[in-house]
């Protein structure tokens, strides 16, 4: 079933929407959740929570052209929340490591108070990423969006870990510089 048809089912409050999303994107959602939580059982729970959240969010949202991105975003947030607040999961270290890396882009004391600035920040990050070569952009996304380990990225790219590490380090520096130039930081 096409994404548009699935979204229409959501809009009509037809429960087949969840069934169809599950058939088409279930594996993808579990996979995103697993990369973050590192736990199969929790990933399945995150997948189910994502369906519930999608049910609540559509409508008012109508992600006709970006259903995958919409669901990926939701499942990522659900999984991150589980990781941070579920003490049974042993994934905190991994997430904290990533947080420390992100702190190089935007130190925590450099606080942004309102949502307006948050929107400006996410727009600027997107613009910065778009300006990067595809390979670098994907590596950055895999690390910061998918929360993948550096070793995993390196292996699948056929690179040494040090290459990935250096690339990410430089990108974080460049992104910070870009945000300063744009007047966001």
């Amino acid at each position: 079933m096409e994404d548009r048809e699935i979204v229409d089912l959501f809009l009509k409050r037809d429960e087949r929407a969840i069934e169809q999303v599950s058939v088409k994107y279930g594996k993808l959602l579990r996979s995103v959740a697993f990369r973050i939580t590192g736990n199969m059982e929790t990933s399945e729970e995150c997948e189910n929570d994502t369906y519930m959240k999608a049910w609540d969010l559509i409508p008012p949202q109508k992600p006709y052209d970006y259903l995958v991105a919409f669901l990926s975003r939701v499942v990522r947030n659900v999984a991150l929340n589980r990781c941070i607040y579920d003490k049974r999961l042993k994934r905190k270290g991994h997430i904290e490591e990533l947080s420390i890396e992100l702190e190089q882009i935007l130190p925590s004391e450099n606080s942004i108070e309102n949502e307006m600035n948050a929107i400006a920040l996410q727009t600027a990050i997107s613009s910065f990423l778009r300006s990067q070569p595809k390979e670098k952009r994907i590596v950055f996304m895999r690390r910061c969006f998918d929360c993948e380990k550096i070793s995993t990225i390196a292996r699948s790219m056929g690179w040494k870990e040090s290459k990935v590490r250096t690339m990410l380090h430089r990108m974080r520096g460049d992104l910070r510089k870009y945000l300063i130039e744009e007047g966001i930081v």
Partner: protein
Amino acid sequence: MSNNRLLFLMSNIDNDLILELTIERERYGKKLATKNKPSKAVISCVAAAVILICVFISVSFNHKVNNNTAVNITDITNPIFPMETETSLETTLSSNDSEPSQTESIGYFSLSADKLRNYDSFDDLATAAEAVVAGESIESTVVFRFGNIYTLTKLLVTDTYKGSVVNGETIWVIERGGYTTYGEYVANCGADEKIFGDMIVDCPDEYQVVMGVDGYFPIKQGEKVLIFVGNTSGFLPDFDEPLYDIIGDTDGKLYVQEDGTYKRADPSQTDDHAFGDNELTITIEDLLSIP
């Protein structure tokens, strides 16, 4: 803004970037699953090597029989390719393990082995073994050979009941199976759909997997065991030290009990051992009776 908030904020980057990542994710997932498919030339070489090994084993077997050497299954197969010929291992889940058992981010998978012979009694084991030792695992590492996973365990020998190993020495023991990650396993052994099922499509590289045989998993670091072993030195290239393998695959591996006896574990879905009443139990007196 807290660090975590920036982490969450990454979720809200533009749709086209997330879509691009989704497409790329599928691409590198497929690349991972297929990158170890051997070329035709490699397949030909492996086939030729297998034929040569079979011929060698056959010659070796005939030689031993002609010399009236006490032959057991392990002896026949030890020189080059011990476990492959002793147990015809299929890359399928054993019937009682149709679903991998999972704990916190770990999947347990059990391959099935068609053994040519079982060693069910103390006498069988003691007769077949070149050495019988008790000891503690102090180090273990996973090695891959012929597209199979093995665990190489360094055992600190505390008691020797048969053979020339001296108490206090360490010996290396190799077993089928091991603790690894999905990515590492697939990179070395291939992504077998019969084992991993749907996981092949979207299982992350870092997913921890534990491979066992017939519900038995390799010796863990710190475990105290009694093992009946044969010499399989030379099985691993570039490994010059004496190497031992367990008689009957897992038959000759027993774990120390509180009362000082040793007991064979029941097959399990994880590496936590359970000991049934009917499993083989060996006492120190039994061991001291080995000639």
